[in-house]
């Protein structure tokens, strides 16, 4: 592992909850690792296994999807669907030979700024512990 390894982490966030929580974390002046690249989704029900695989293929060290609390989905069940898809995608990562721990789903309500910061920290810690995604060509790519 290179000494200056800075994990690159993709966070797919629902605009109704986790994305708003990210805004709140900012307003609350909470610190969280700057390794997170947020991709806003209208609902985590939009997430596709292929989005996750492409992120890893392009060298992401970790990927997570953050959606509403159970029962709170703006579109009723998008977050439940996303949970299942992430479980499925974890199996694909195992098939490929990547650690499934590089991928996770979090329930983060719109009012949970601190929870957003915690999730960002947890995934950064995981990525640091697991080391760089072996598909990543070199730092900075």
């Amino acid at each position, binding site marked *: 592992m290179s000494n200056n390894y800075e994990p690159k982490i993709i966070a797919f966030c629902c605009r109704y909850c986790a994305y708003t929580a990210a805004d709140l974390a900012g307003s609350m002046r909470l610190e969280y690792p700057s390794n997170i690249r947020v991709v806003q989704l209208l609902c985590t029900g939009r997430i596709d296994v292929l989005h996750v*695989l*492409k992120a890893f293929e392009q060298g992401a060290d970790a990927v997570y999807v953050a959606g509403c609390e159970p029962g709170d989905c703006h579109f009723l069940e998008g977050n439940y669907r996303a949970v299942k898809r992430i479980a499925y995608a974890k199996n694909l990562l195992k098939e*490929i030979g990547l650690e499934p721990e590089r991928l996770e789903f979090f329930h983060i309500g719109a009012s949970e700024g601190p929870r957003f910061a915690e999730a960002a920290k947890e995934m950064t810690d995981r990525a640091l512990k697991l080391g760089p995604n*072996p598909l990543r060509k070199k730092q900075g790519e």
Partner: protein
Amino acid sequence: MIVGDRKPIEEIKEMLAPYKKILLVGCGTCISVCMTGGEKEVGILASELRMISELEKKDWEISETTIQRQCEREYIEPLKEQFEKADVVMSMACGVGIQYMAEVFPEKIVLPAVNTTFYGTNVKEGEWQERCAGCGDCVLDKTLGICPVARCSKGLYNGPCGGTDNGKCEVNKDLDCAWYLIYNRMKEHGKLDMLDEIIPARSWKTSLHGGPRKRVREDAQK
């Protein structure tokens, strides 16, 4: 529709081991609807194979495409150029598509990425069940629309057998007893007397036991 399951990745890797340029071809009809080998699944497998190639230093070059139907020549022929560029073709269609692509381009090896399993229906989101065995001599009139060939584990024409257990099959407790379903359906329609009719032993020549089947309509031929 025809239903299938993607083969285990280890089997796919082993098949592809001797090749470099791999063309992955999906099918946009049945196998796409059963979420096994359509455009999306081709994208997923292609992405997986690209990552495996990188991780295991396999030097594969994966290209991907999906056509409307792999069981019809006019959809396959436009792939000529892509076939020529590939060392091998891996199909995500049912067994029909895999074979027919190899027939249309006999100079190319076409490998299966899918195990074709049955003719079935999508009973609910994410679940497909077998309904027809393609036996060539339909008896659904005698069983009120529930097939004893495809849905009775023993293929009994006069059931149920002693293994029926509160509507379930002794072969697998998750399976409905087809003859229990048939009985209930006859009862609902006030046709229980149909059970008195013995369905005689049939010829299985119309099924695979008479060899591969074909259908000819002379009026449609040139």
